[in-house]
């Protein structure tokens, strides 16, 4: 009975029914990825020897001095000024969220630390925001830097690197790239094989697409039997393009190109 039902379905519904999980899963992953919180992060790197006026300070003294400056920069008063100057947390302020809550929020978003040994002689200021304008973040980073500069114990000669944006956390980027790759590779491949069934005549399927699928299958099986995964991957890519080329050639656009070519001759 079940077979009879599937036979009566129109091709596109049959295809969707057959491959539903292959479509639903990558789409769900993609939606999950899009729903992940995104951060804007600004990083400023400063040379440590230029950062501290006295270059003869011991490591412990340097860390102590750095902590003191950091406290001044992240003081309630300093952060309140920054919130007002850059019109930060506008929605929250309009909703009458307490000032000390916003100050705390900003303090949690700003991370200032001395680089570890790998980044010798470099200090970093990290500023992270949810859904914040990146120009705002750039200005804010500069402001925090200026506050460091104002301190009489600090002398900044130059920035080691220009401030740069990391719009999305690196791990999220990696996760997203994996998912997008999965979506790009899996869905089109399945769709490709089904396109001729939906749009082309039985004769075209028999004479053009079935032989192409047959070659694809034979070459792929051969590569797999020889245990050549890279070759198999290359075959998949190569035949995907060949399949697309055949689809285009057999489309009305392909017919038009053929007609123009004949006419030109």
């Amino acid at each position: 009975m079940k077979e009879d039902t599937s036979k009566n379905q129109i091709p596109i519904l049959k295809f969707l029914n057959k491959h539903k999980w292959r479509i639903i899963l990558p789409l769900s992953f993609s939606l999950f990825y899009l729903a992940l919180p995104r951060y804007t992060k600004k990083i400023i790197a400063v040379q440590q020897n230029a950062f501290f006026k006295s270059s003869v300070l011991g490591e412990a003294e340097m860390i102590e001095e750095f902590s003191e400056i950091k406290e001044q920069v992240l003081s309630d008063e300093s952060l309140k000024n920054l919130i007002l100057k850059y019109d930060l947390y506008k929605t929250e302020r309009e909703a009458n969220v307490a000032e000390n809550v916003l100050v705390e929020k900003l303090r949690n978003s700003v991370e200032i630390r001395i680089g570890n040994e790998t980044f010798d002689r470099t200090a970093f200021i990290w500023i992270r925001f949810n859904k914040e304008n990146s120009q705002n973040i750039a200005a804010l980073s500069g402001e925090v830097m200026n506050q460091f500069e104002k301190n009489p114990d600090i002398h900044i000669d130059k920035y080691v690197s220009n401030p740069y944006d990391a719009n999305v956390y690196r791990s999220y980027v990696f996760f997203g790239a994996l998912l997008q790759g999965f979506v790009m590779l899996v869905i089109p491949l399945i769709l490709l094989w089904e396109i001729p069934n939906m749009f082309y005549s039985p004769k075209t399927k028999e004479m053009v697409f079935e032989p192409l699928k047959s070659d694809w299958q034979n070459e792929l099986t051969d590569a797999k039997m020889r245990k050549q995964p890279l070759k198999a991957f290359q075959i998949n890519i190569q035949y995907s393009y060949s399949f697309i080329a055949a689809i285009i050639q057999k489309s009305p656009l392909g017919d038009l190109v053929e007609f123009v070519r004949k006419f030109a001759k």
Partner: protein
Amino acid sequence: MDNKNEEFPKLSRKEFSILQLLISNGEMFGLEMVKESEGELKRGTIYVTLQRMGDKGYIESREEPRELPEIGIPRREYSATGLGERVYQTNIKAQEFFNRDFVLEGYN
């Protein structure tokens, strides 16, 4: 029935290569032709060209014979028809004629 064709059956480069391969090697699979042509024929376009040639009557094809039930899609074997061979020979002669006239007229 009048079999005369008023229009000269000019072959495209791809069609010419396909007929050349089929006439010299006999029956061939599409993939074999792609490999033998050394880049002249492509995987993505050969079957479209073969279908058009089949419609014109230059070639014919059949599914490869299988004795035992095998997994996978059967391949197609192609061969040139009598018309295809005549068109191929005509094109070669036309080319020779054209080249000879060029030499005679001093263009070569």
